[in-house]
């Protein structure tokens, strides 16, 4: 299902790009999965139930934290097996496992700015993989923010990069107290993704 393309062949260059990326380390890969694998990928997700999750910072439909089907669990394991070794070398952090949930953002769904960082959870690298949508979304971009502090005090959070949820695109970024990001509100259509974190 997952096979790394030629974009992954020069890890030294990717590591430099990762470190130099602003506002915090991240990479974007287009045409991530082989085109021939996409129908099978979508078929796996069709079997997975999603339900509405709503809090003060989010509103979206998502699968349960632990996949319900053996197929999605296998997809998660193969994703981690293929990605964790090269990402470890690129990010300079040992990554071993990943979790994975399916997300469906419909009109009015959003995920407001947050960092993903929680000391006790051990999230090291976040990822989002965008699937082809039967009704391509308007909105739903991943927006990265630059944080500026004075001492321990956060004094500004400014939009620094917008990444569209293009089909078959993978985004990975470093999780830290400064990795402020959001999913902008979907105004129309359907945004489908697989997302989660890599852990040591």
């Amino acid at each position: 299902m997952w096979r790394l393309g030629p974009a992954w062949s020069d890890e030294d260059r990717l590591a430099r790009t990762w470190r130099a990326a602003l506002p915090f380390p991240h990479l974007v890969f287009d045409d991530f999965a082989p085109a021939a694998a996409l129908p099978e990928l979508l078929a796996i997700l069709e079997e997975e139930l999603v339900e509405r999750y709503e809090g003060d910072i989010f509103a979206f439909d998502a699968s349960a934290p632990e996949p319900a089907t053996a197929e999605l669990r296998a997809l998660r394991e193969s994703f981690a097996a293929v990605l964790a070794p090269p990402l470890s070398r690129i990010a300079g952090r040992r990554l071993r496992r990943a979790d994975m949930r399916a997300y469906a953002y419909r009109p009015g769904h959003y995920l407001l700015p947050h960092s993903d960082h929680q000391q006790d959870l051990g999230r090291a690298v976040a990822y989002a993989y965008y699937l082809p949508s039967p009704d391509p979304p308007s909105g739903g971009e991943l927006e990265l923010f630059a944080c500026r502090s004075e001492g321990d005090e956060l004094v500004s959070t400014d939009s620094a990069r917008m990444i569209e949820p293009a089909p078959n695109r993978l985004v990975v970024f470093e999780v830290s107290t400064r990795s402020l990001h959001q999913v902008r509100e979907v105004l129309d259509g359907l945004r489908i993704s697989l997302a989660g974190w890599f852990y040591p």
Partner: protein
Amino acid sequence: MTTPTTIEQLFGARTAVVVPDVVAPALAAEIRERLERAGYTRYALLDRGSYDVLVEPEEPALFATLIELAARTTGRSLAIAEARALRLSPGDYLLAHHDRIHGDHPVELVLDLSPAAVPGAEVHYRRRGQVYFRVPCAPGSLGIVERGPTVACNHTYVSKRNPGAIVVRLVLLLRDA
């Protein structure tokens, strides 16, 4: 006779109500205009909130009316401790972790001065993360909530699917006089 099972029950149920039609549309429009003239400041630390705020607006006659209504509703003698006006446009919000925790059970008033109802734009009061009381966007209404030490409040995201929507709220914190 039933036995109280929570500390809150031991102390008696606390008020959380929405009183409709406290302010007429014409008066709300006048107040909005005065707040506008006094000048809002943009708050944009986006991990906490995105909104316009006016701290300590001067509306003594209105405050007196609201305090009297809150005192009647709660049975407490109350005085104003803090006041601010909030203005939210599409894309704006205030998150729960941006709210302050109050250990002394103050009363919070939320007067809705919006020109029109905005679907989904609500004030949520939460206990340990769970919403237990919602103040909907209903122009002219007043939310009266006796807060406790486990209560946090957030103002929900205003959808960009409501272009041109404006939510204006006067938020007062009252303490025992």
